[in-house]
């Protein structure tokens, strides 16, 4: 409930001392996020969950080398990033398309995307704050669609049925949400290129 700083830094201290309850706290907090991140690049939920598991095992084993609370997130993402890159480079990503050229092209692009992300602790915390703020600022309907889509992993058709709107409307909300987020996030150094939606 409270992402209370003093509570989290205490939890971090016990984590460093090897308390399992503290580890569980961070596991619960980040597991889904690391999994969702992995899915974007290896396109397989089970594999992405394995990857996240591995990341946490490594986090536990390396807990002595983590020197700040934010270091936890940074460690997990950096691990996930390099695992995704390995996964792609060793051709472990299953072919999605009939056309092999597309499979090849997609992997190439994903490698470029991964390489463009730096999981610096400061950047992560700041980015998280901005994303949270930006999502909260979306118009209510758009936010609802966005949350259902991105955090509850629902299909457009499901969302349309739940919200009793047309499929087109759902797509329009998603486009709008991404456009707004894109613009807001572009203010941040992290993302340099402003995407103009209707070009």
């Amino acid at each position: 409930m409270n992402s209370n700083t003093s509570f989290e830094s205490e939890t971090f201290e016990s984590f460093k001392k090897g308390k399992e309850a503290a580890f569980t706290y961070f596991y619960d907090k980040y597991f889904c996020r690391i999994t969702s991140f992995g899915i974007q690049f290896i396109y397989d939920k089970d594999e992405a969950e394995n990857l996240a598991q591995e990341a946490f095992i490594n986090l536990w084993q390396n807990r002595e080398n983590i020197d700040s609370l934010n270091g936890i997130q940074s460690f997990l993402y950096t691990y996930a990033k390099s695992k995704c890159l390995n996964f792609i480079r060793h051709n472990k990503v299953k072919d999605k398309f009939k056309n092999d050229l597309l499979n090849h092209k997609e992997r190439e692009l994903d490698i470029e995307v991964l390489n463009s992300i730096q999981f610096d602790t400061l950047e992560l915390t700041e980015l998280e704050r901005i994303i949270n703020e930006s999502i909260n600022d979306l118009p209510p309907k758009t936010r609802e669609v966005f949350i259902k889509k991105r955090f509850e992993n629902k299909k457009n058709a499901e969302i349309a049925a739940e919200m009793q709107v047309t499929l087109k409307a759902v797509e329009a909300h998603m486009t709008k949400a991404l456009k707004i987020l894109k613009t807001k996030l572009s203010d941040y150094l992290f993302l340099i290129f402003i995407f103009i939606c209707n070009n």
Partner: protein
Amino acid sequence: MASEIIYKYLSNEASEKEIQTLFEWIDASEENKKQFISIKKTWALSALTENISTNTTPVIKIKPKNKAAKYLKYAAVFLTLLGLGRIAFNFSQKTKSSKEIVLELGDGRTEFITKTNQSNLVNDKGELIARKLPGQIVYFGKAKDDEVIYNSLKVPYGKTFKLTLSDGTVVSLNSGTTFRYPEQFGINGKRTVFLTGEAFFEVAKDKEHPFIVNANQAAIEVLGTKFNVSAYPETPTVNSVLVEGSIQMYEAENISNAVLLKPNQMATWQNNSKKITTKSVDPDFYSAWTKGELTFKDTPFSTIVKIIQRTYDVEIINENSDLARQHFTGTIKISESSVENILELLKRDTPFEYTIKQSTITITNIQ
């Protein structure tokens, strides 16, 4: 390039043909490729977030007082009279005995209430009296006679809690609060509870059994209504703000010293003068904490310090006399703001420096 295709692709809903078109577009120019990478990056990283609140309140919403000074996100008003020569606000006497919510049962047994344990509460007669859920306890049933057994709940700094009493009355307890209440209300007589700290009451209607909150030397009597009571030991007053219905505040020792309150009014009991005064207020402002918000309206920094100490379980020592004289206005969402966030925000208005050592924050002048 229609951006819809990109989003369709990212959510795995594009056809192979559409994807082919997309990839051709990406290959067409370096600029297109950069755009695509940028969007995919945003998409992948937006999975960073969790706990997106379903209400519409932004993280920190600060209303500037002076429209001309829009850049000034945190508006402050100087009030030189309020310095009081008091430089250090050190409330070391605050109770720091426990970090957990503690429930004391009628027979003296104590239990810690943690987030995860869900269990039933049984009294000394072996009867089921309540169910513990994450973040709240729900009592039920009525006593068979007039014998009333009191339980007491202590909410430490940094936590809040919700309680449903056996009559259906819902009580939200703020940080640093002790609340004593019958595990089951008796058949006859009044429903009497005791409060130190702050609570918001939604009293179940029952004309036969008036509900009485004893706080400090004041008592508040109601039949069925919604109201907030603030009676922290470090302040010499008891405040009660009425949202709906009607309540009466009186001196516990002298029932004739009483006032009747209408909705949107606040009654204040003064320990020193033993007087009760009333004024019109915005009740939302006083119950904002039940929604996890801190609200300040021309609030002196000294009061803000007390509130932050309770909410975040920290100790603040202020050695900056400029800041001590400041008043601030604004709203802060507790779950999404750390103490550092708040201090950084205040700093934009009145520059100061601070150091954090464990849970003690020392505020000093700029060197």
